[in-house]
């Protein structure tokens, strides 16, 4: 493998600190600091600092914003890595440039989900230990903690690592302060046809292994809710498929947004061309359609059942306390559907419009996750407890903001260390 001359810049602005980047990293760091501060208050006072309270006589919701975002981040992670895997499996070469972005998104989102679970625990330190010592497969949480957060995180890291070896090897050709890292990462990768073939085979099987794992894992997240017979609004067979679909929607949506950002800041306009976005848009359109179908099924079932509590819950969703979030989420879905449909029908795809659609579906997904988590607790009591209420405390918002900040920070740092868009084939001299 030939070395580049000193002074040759690393691709995609790696290692170059720009004021724009600094601003974003600074803002993200502030958010993280805020989140840490908010959490430290929570850690010292107890979860009483949140807006969460017990169900029943205390009239609260015991799972709130944190669990909402556990589910949301879990979904995003699913979307990211599934796409990356599908690119391999289905040989969607056009989409290859965003493969790494998808993998990265998964790793980061999983990390955030894990932190969100920890901040929600009453005894986080114990959680870290006891889950490894005593986790029970009977609990749907087993899946969440072990499969989703360990297996899946590890698998994504392996995937990211193996897929990045070639680019690491390329970067290692350029002298830089990070060269040791690239060498380490490349681990002797020479991009020989043999290695390429081996990598192709390995990553194919990895993808084969990952996708079902992910479907299982994400449905498991759905089962956390869907298996609860005593909780109106949760006990439903559509819960798992709806979870998976919405996960895809939010993951792909966020990927579109990220890709658009990366395209701008990493100067990858040529790698991340309109065709990439067109494909993603099409995918998103399909997922949104499937999701809306499932949503409609869910709503019809809920409104048609004779169960008074179910009906009361549906009423709270449709016209009651949660109507604002519900209709806003639905409007966002429909709006993004309209945007996507219009683009698909006219075959005139626009990146800004896609970004808008991506943002909209993510907001809607967050709203929808919230509506799955909270109303069944406050309005879904089977015994005649008074209606509960839950208003997230400022601290909870701060922690969530901190999580987003951490996500941005991690991705931003990654971008300055490693090519976030897979480097083009032709840069590699054949048969080196």
């Amino acid at each position, binding site marked *: 493998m030939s070395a580049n001359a000193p002074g040759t810049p690393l691709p995609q602005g790696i290692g170059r600190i720009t004021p724009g980047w600094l601003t974003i990293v600074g803002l993200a760091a502030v958010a993280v600091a805020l989140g840490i501060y908010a959490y430290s208050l929570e850690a010292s006072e107890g979860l009483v600092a949140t807006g969460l309270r*017990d169900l029943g006589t205390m009239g609260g919701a015991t799972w709130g914003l944190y669990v909402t975002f556990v589910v949301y981040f879990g979904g995003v992670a699913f979307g990211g890595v599934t796409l990356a895997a599908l690119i391999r499996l289905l040989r969607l070469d056009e989409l290859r440039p965003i493969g790494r972005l998808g993998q990265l998104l998964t790793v980061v989102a999983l990390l955030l989900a894990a932190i969100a679970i920890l901040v929600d625990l*009453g005894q986080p330190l114990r959680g870290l230990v*006891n889950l490894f010592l005593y986790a029970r497969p009977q609990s749907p949480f087993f899946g969440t903690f072990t499969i989703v957060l360990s297996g899946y995180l590890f698998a994504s890291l392996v995937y990211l690592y193996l897929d990045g070896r070639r680019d690491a090897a390329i970067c290692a050709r350029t002298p830089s302060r990070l060269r040791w890292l690239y060498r380490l990462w490349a681990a002797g990768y020479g991009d020989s046809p043999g290695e390429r073939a081996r990598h192709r085979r390995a990553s194919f099987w990895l993808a084969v292994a990952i996708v079902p794992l992910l479907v299982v894992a994400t449905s498991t997240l759905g089962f956390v809710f869907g298996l609860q017979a005593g909780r109106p609004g949760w006990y439903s067979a559509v819960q798992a498929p709806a979870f998976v679909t919405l996960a895809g929607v939010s993951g792909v949506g966020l990927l579109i947004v990220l890709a658009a950002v990366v395209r701008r800041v990493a100067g990858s306009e040529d790698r991340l061309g309109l065709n990439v976005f067109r494909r993603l848009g099409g995918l998103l359109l399909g997922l949104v359609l499937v999701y809306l179908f499932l949503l409609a099924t869910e709503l019809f079932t809920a409104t048609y059942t004779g169960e008074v509590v179910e009906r009361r819950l549906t009423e709270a969703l449709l016209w009651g306390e949660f109507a604002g979030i519900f209709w806003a989420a639905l409007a966002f879905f429909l709006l993004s559907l309209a945007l996507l449909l219009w683009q698909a029908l006219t075959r005139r795809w626009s990146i800004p419009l896609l970004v808008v659609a991506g943002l909209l579906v993510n907001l809607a997904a967050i709203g929808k996750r919230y509506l799955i988590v909270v109303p069944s607790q406050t309005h879904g009591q089977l015994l*005649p407890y008074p209606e509960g209420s839950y208003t997230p405390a400022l601290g909870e918002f701060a922690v969530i903001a901190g999580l987003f900040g951490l996500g941005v920070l991690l991705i931003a740092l990654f971008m300055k260390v490693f090519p976030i868009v897979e480097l083009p084939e032709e840069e590699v001299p054949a048969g080196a």
Partner: protein
Amino acid sequence: MPKYAMAVDLERCQGCRACVEACKVENNTSQGVFWMHVFRLEEGEYPETRISFLPRPCQHCDNAPCVKVCPVGARYKRIDGLVLTDYERCIGCRYCEVACPYGVNFFNWKQPAENYYMDWSDPDIQPASGGEVPPYRNPELDGRYGSEQKQVAGGGHFRGIVEKCTFCVQRIEKGLQPACVTVCPVQALVFGDLEDQESPVSTYLRGKQSFRLLEETGTEPRVHYIGGRTPGTDVREIEPVEGRVGA
């Protein structure tokens, strides 16, 4: 092996909530925590109004959703039927709480010592309280119970974990009745061993119609209600307790 169960006679219950208070003192539960709760309910329109009462201890289900969902096995079912929480195991995820259709789980949102209604640190009461918080702190709650010798009675009540009614495990292992049963002025609560044909609960239930709460959810509760019926859907809770813990 005994099979513990409780019978609640709704034809006798007067909704006085003495059981609630006896439970709170016996088990030293902190503010806003009601291991035992008594619903006071109203339905119908004037003048066809109906008042009813419904005591709600933990149902100690045979097919307990809380046991099933507990990710670390902190919530477990004993062979004698008690559903208990291992205070040293619980991680505070509150999954049991969302899984339970009866609303019997309580999370310790605050440091319990700071949630005992009053500031007990007053130096003048130390000679009488011996520095205990609350001053009526029951040392038996610190014990380990059952063949598995777990800390399940709630001694001290720890922040960040979930707790609930234990059928007063510290009392029944001594051969006493749960505190709520003992205190009830009208003997609306009956406790005992279903295996023993002569136990109070067996004799009380014999030949009587009974039902269990939310049987349709498949939880197989160990609390049997006599008289009355499952609260209808148009019942309204009246006179709710002050249940919300402030920040």
